[in-house]
């Protein structure tokens, strides 16, 4: 971006000849030509919809009514949202789901360090732990659905075999459903985080470790004093992307539980989907979208501020 800033601030020379002027015009034209497909697409499919979402958040509207049926209700939708037990529950579940982020980050960091330094067959391990991430979430969710089958599924059969006579009903039990889905999400996310951590590890200068070796530092000290602090930009990046990804969790919930049993796995995006496309309440769903958008925006801004204090470059 620096490069662009520079070029923008460069004023054209005061006595520009007619020829350079027309050259500049040509450049501007071709610049626009090159970026216009993306710009037009983004404007129609993203920018206008954002504005429309913000506007619709203040309306009471149902898909079947047509455009004439729009009623403007001001902030009523938002007032309702904060008294809507299901919505509050979805927000709470989303926040509980955030716990997966530090868990998979920690596991991924340990795996990355082991794979980067302490194993043979690195290539195999990278692929093996990465497979759940590239696999189709829907197909994977279907497989887990069967594995978690409460009365004769393989997982509970195994638990019974090792002496647990009354294993949890997993996704069928309101107390366990969210945790079950969180476990699957952790399993899927490990690969992605691990790959980023391996890249982060490889950018740490080797001579730091050599110097530490000369000073006689042991593995734990090296981890605490070198690896962990120098991985902090990576960790920070993964934390932010992980939090944002949590706010977008949808596939697993939609396939495995549809928000149930009794709302125990309803997350913000699921509730948004259910309100808009099952209950057809467009205005109300838009106000959920606005809240979702606000959360993501807050996180992104928080990131800018926190980055300075938190990260060791």
């Amino acid at each position: 971006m620096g490069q662009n800033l520079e070029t923008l601030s460069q004023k054209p020379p005061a006595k520009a000849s007619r020829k350079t002027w027309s050259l500049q015009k040509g450049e501007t034209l071709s610049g626009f030509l090159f970026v216009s497909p993306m710009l037009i697409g983004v404007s129609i499919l993203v920018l206008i919809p954002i504005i429309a979402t913000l506007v619709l958040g203040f309306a009471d509207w149902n898909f079947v009514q047509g455009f004439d049926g729009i009623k403007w209700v001001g902030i009523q939708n938002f007032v309702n949202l904060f008294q809507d037990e299901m919505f509050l529950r979805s927000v709470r579940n989303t926040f509980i789901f955030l716990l997966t982020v530090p868990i998979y980050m920690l596991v991924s960091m340990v795996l990355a360090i082991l794979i980067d330094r302490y194993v043979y067959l690195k290539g195999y391990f990278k692929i093996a732990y990465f497979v759940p991430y590239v696999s189709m979430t829907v197909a994977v969710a279907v497989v887990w659905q069967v594995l978690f089958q409460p009365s004769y599924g393989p997982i509970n059969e195994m638990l019974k075999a090792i002496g647990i006579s009354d294993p949890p009903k997993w996704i069928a039990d309101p107390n366990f459903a969210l945790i079950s889905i969180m476990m699957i999400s952790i399993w899927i996310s490990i690969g992605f985080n691990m790959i980023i951590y391996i890249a982060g590890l490889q950018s740490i200068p080797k001579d730091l470790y050599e110097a530490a070796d000369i000073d006689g530092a042991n593995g734990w000290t090296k981890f605490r004093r070198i690896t962990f602090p120098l991985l902090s930009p990576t960790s920070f990046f993964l934390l932010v992307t992980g939090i944002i990804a949590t706010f977008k969790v949808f596939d697993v919930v939609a396939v495995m539980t549809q928000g149930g049993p009794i709302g125990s796995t309803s997350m913000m995006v699921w509730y948004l989907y259910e309100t808009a496309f099952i209950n057809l309440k467009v205005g109300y769903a838009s106000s959920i979208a606005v809240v979702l958008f606000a959360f993501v925006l807050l996180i992104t801004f928080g990131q800018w501020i926190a980055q300075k204090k938190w990260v060791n470059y």
Partner: protein
Amino acid sequence: MQTREGLDLRKIVVTIVMFVGSILFLLPFIWMLVTSFKVESEVFTYPIQWLPKEWNAIENYKEVWFGQYPFTMYYWNSIKVAVITTTLSCLVSAMAAYGFSKIKFKASNFLFMIVLVTYMIPGQAILIPQFILYRNIGLFDSHLGLIMLGSFSVLGTFMLRQFFMGLHQEFIESAKIDGAGHGRIFWSIAMPLVKPAVATYAILRFIWTWNDYQNPLIFIRSDRLLTLPIAVQKFTSMSGEFYSLIMAAAVSAILPLILIFIIGQKSVIEGIALGGVKG
């Protein structure tokens, strides 16, 4: 490190432990594959049969591919949508990336900021207006609509822009002196030089499009237009208790991805690591 020749005992131990861990990690996939070969009555026998006693593979897969919910059709839909989306997305992204990095023009910075902002927007927050828009311009329930949704991803622009910026400006200047326009420079000079980056992005975009569940769920209604993720789900709810068939469907949906990933794994992993991208 270099002084250590031969095998390191600690490394061997860690490798073995990690190998066991990786098998446990992959167990759901192994179970899925094995189950897809079984006859239904053997699916839930315990202890788990890791090798089917009775093979029913051909019958299961035949049912999935040519039965009531024919995967041949969904495969074709998925391939069509994923290939066109990937191609279009690479082209649009590469053009924008070139425009933003190699052409100095007014408003470039401002426009890039706009594109940057859209990157933060959670896709789900704009689903409703997109849905309304699609209903009104006739893109609802069509592959074209699905393709459009996937083709304007800003991510590709960011990734490729990094690579275009790495190209020396002299290349472009000298081509210009030789009388080439930007179109020519882009296509015959810049694109060949960033080919590996485009290939990486293409593989990622293909995987993401192949896996996309949300857009087809909302924007496709007709059975004959469904792509694989929805087809897997429909197939599952239709097949009810026929878990061997469901697993054959899941294997069919995942297998091409695993193959593409193994073939292109180096560029996928590098691309992910380099761009820190999350689809």
